[in-house]
């Protein structure tokens, strides 16, 4: 039986913006088992990055966890001190962001930056010589050939720099990697190579992964399970196969259809009318109801609760709850 590594329960986050309080995350609940890969799918403003930042305690100063808990390997992260969280980050939970490839120091060779990441964690390497040896291993692990190790970041391509960022995020030997849009600014071939690398690292290191993306295809390529976010809510969760092929929430269903495919009929465009709501002016009731084709009377009046459809399978939708949809 697989062990639960991360458990998020009823997590809510608010941002203060002037006198307003914006609900960026509303009662998010899910679990990540050891060695499993969870995709977090959402459009802009859906709360997916807030979720990625809230787990390791990296929310900006104007954000606040207003409810809920995050448990990692039996320890509460929501109740942890700043100092404890600092130890968790890197050592237990690694992180890679979209702009990670631009965070390398342009004035220092790549390998010495990886060495620094290794030495930042007590007990990982004993001395500089060991750190250099280990750093070279890490770079090889992410397919950076030896002749490039002593070069500077500007001599690397974007994809290579992103691979270095992944190597550095793994320096402390984490068991969970949170990757927020790690391939978004990259070309398809580079993107493919990074996804292949993350896939391989999962096999080799038994790493669990939370992969945040707006791209359904990318999540389908690499994840086992997926949560779909809309307006700060997790509107659906299930296995990637379930979410993709048997979506329950009308938003998920339409999003899957909206994905451009090489196998679809040319000249046919399927979108969702309207656009995602702004957090500062959410519609009453279900935030998706103004764009929803299956809307019921109560959808504009009352916010839906999660309807549990099975283990790890749920949707937050009145229509699903009413059992109108099969």
């Amino acid at each position, binding site marked *: 039986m697989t062990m639960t590594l991360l458990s998020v329960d009823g997590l809510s986050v608010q941002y203060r913006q002037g006198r307003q309080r914006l609900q960026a995350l509303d009662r998010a609940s899910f679990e990540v088992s050891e060695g499993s890969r969870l995709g977090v799918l959402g*459009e802009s403003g859906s709360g997916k990055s807030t979720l990625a930042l809230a787990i390791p305690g990296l929310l900006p100063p104007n954000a606040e966890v207003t409810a809920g808990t995050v448990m990692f390997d039996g320890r509460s992260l929501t109740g942890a001190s700043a100092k404890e969280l600092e130890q968790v980050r890197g050592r237990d939970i690694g992180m890679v962001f979209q702009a990670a490839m631009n965070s390398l120091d342009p004035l220092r060779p790549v390998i010495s930056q990886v060495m620094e990441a290794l030495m930042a964690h007590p007990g990982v390497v004993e001395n500089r010589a060991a750190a250099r040896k280990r750093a070279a291993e890490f770079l090889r692990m992410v397919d950076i050939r030896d002749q490039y190790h002593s070069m500077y970041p500007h001599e690397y391509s974007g994809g290579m720099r992103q691979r270095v960022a992944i190597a550095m995020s793994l320096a402390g030997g984490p068991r969970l990697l949170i990757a927020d849009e790690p391939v978004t600014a990259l*070309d398809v*071939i580079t993107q493919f190579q990074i996804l292949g690398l993350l896939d*391989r690292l999962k096999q080799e290191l038994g790493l669990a992964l939370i992969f945040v993306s707006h791209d359904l295809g990318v999540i389908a*390529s*690499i994840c086992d399970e997926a949560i779909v976010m809309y307006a700060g809510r997790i509107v659906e969760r299930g296995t990637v196969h379930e979410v993709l092929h048997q979506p329950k929430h009308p938003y998920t269903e339409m999003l899957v259809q909206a994905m451009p495919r090489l*196998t679809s009929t040319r000249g046919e465009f399927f*979108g969702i009318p309207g656009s995602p709501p702004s957090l500062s002016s959410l519609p009453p009731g279900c935030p998706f109801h103004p764009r929803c084709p299956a809307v019921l009377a109560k959808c504009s009046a009352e916010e839906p609760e999660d309807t549990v459809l099975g283990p790890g399978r749920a949707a937050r939708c009145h229509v699903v709850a009413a059992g109108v949809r099969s």
Partner: protein
Amino acid sequence: MTSVVAAPGPIIRARDLAVEFERRGGRRRGDPLRAVDEVSLDIGKGETLCIVGESGSGKTTLVRAIGGLVPLTSGSVQFDGAEMVKLGRAARRQLRRRIQYVFQDPYESLSPRRNVFDVVSEPLRVHRLARSRQDLEKHVAEVLSQCGFEPATEYFDRYPHELSGGQRQRLLIAAAVVIRPDLLIADEPVSMLDVSVRAEILGVLKDLQASYKLSMIFVTHDLAIAWSIGDAIAVMYQGLLVEYGTAEEIIRSPRHPYTQALLQALPDSEGAMGLRELSIRGDGLDSDRVSSGCRFEPRCPYAQAICTQQRPPNVGLGTDHQSACLRAEEISLKGVSAGAASEARGDPGD
């Protein structure tokens, strides 16, 4: 509005078009960067040509050179039969009316102080295409509703901050087509938008194209989008066209190994990363070297001796399916077939 009687022949005839940029510093200062290298192509009237390539492949520079926004280093571009560099002032002004652009970023392209009516009416006023205020309003309302703003007059007084990203991009499209250009150059027009609103933009472009008989050059890095909107697709690699053909030919039966790699790399709902293989080598870093042969050779799994010795043929002239691969006749490449996904997707009820 006066309509210019179109001459027969293609709207764009580019021949041996090259664009070089000066390198300002670094190790290779003085050695010009050849962003577009001897590209020849024709774009038929009413046709949509998609230019596909990775970042740095020269696709944006190519379309800017075609539209006259970037000076040519060599070669020529004819617009509807007229040589663009030889045009006088008045003809250039006229040309600017006939070629319009839509760019990637709808957030940066609009002034926060100008409302929807100002944005869409300005081109009409600049080119003196409206006889009266009433006429102006009529044209603006007409094009806005064609771009999905209904009822159009209700949007006249709105400012950009009141519009969503998708609405802003539709507004910019309206401002581009209100003066009835012959050619619309759209450079990654949906790349910054959410997936759920992309379809709306593509649908508007497709409708406008049909109703205005627009020719369109559509630049994208996404083959799935090129497939959905393009009649023809040109694939660029390092400043060169490497393959040209109908959308059907490029996607279903590619004839250049680079196109095949792009198709293989495209993530889709088939999933299972580990099961797929990409027929491309290396990380693209070695390809900076100047080769007398094919530029894709260092990364090509099909490369043989001939590929380092012989310069590949130019593609893009004519309408048949063409590949710049020296071994195109000998190798067999795989495209994405129409049935592939439905098979992987399984039955709806599974």
